[in-house]
């Protein structure tokens, strides 16, 4: 372990803003993508359902 304390870790030698903005953005972006993937999958499954109903209707 390189750091002396967790506080030192979070402070990142005074560059906390830049480091955590970078890491934060990455994880936020990944989270958003994962949510969007889920949404898209649910929508695709829903569309199939709808299609089937339409077909039953005709």
């Amino acid at each position: 372990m390189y750091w002396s304390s967790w506080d030192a870790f979070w402070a990142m030698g005074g560059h906390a803003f830049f480091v955590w903005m970078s890491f934060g953005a990455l994880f936020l972006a990944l989270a958003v993508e994962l949510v969007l993937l889920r949404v898209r999958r649910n929508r695709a499954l829903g569309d199939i359902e709808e299609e089937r109903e339409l077909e039953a209707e005709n």
Partner: protein
Amino acid sequence: MNWFYFSSPSTFYGLAGRLAPWLFALAAVTAAWGLYLGLLVAPTDAQQGEVYRVIFIHVPTAWMSMFLYFVMACYCGLTLVFNTRLSAMMARAIAPTGALFTAVALWTGSFWGKPTWGTYWVWDARLTSELVLLFLYFGFIALSNAFEDPRRGDRAAALLAIIGVVNLPIIYFSVQWWNTLHQGSSVSFKGTSMHVTMLTGMLVMSFSAWFYAAGAALVRVRSIILERERRAHWVRELKEG
């Protein structure tokens, strides 16, 4: 292995479904290991101080942004030459993740640039060509969705992706061809100028990014297959079962 067996969307749908969880798991494990090395173990950089730790996500995402474009263009080549359906779907599935990594590379680069270069943005060749890459991804996504008929979108976007491949060498070699602020390659076949822990951390993070990208692309391609093959028999049976 019989490639043709898996190149049918219905069989690939199953294969992708089985692979994706493993890929995500591997991505999580390697990410944990890489972050541990990068954030907790690796020593500070003599010149830059702690900001340099951005390297552990900047470089993997930057590499991935180019690599994914390359893979996408290969699938596009298959689409145009053999008119295979699955390859076009894979290209569509990769594009958003590629764009995401490109955007993150730009973002992390900017936040690294502010403390080291004193500015968020400069218009040098490396940064600009990376921005162009982002626009190429956007163009690909927009064009592939701009047609009523998805097959037409596939082919048009495939052609665009292939034309855009010219940009990749420009990004990669820009630091050599032009005088740029951005630093040149420090990882090369001749050996590297980096601390071993840093290098390991970066490579582990790169693998993690690769696993993640593959997993995300496979999950997305499953949705795309469902959207496209909505009316196929096997999709119907899929839900009924």
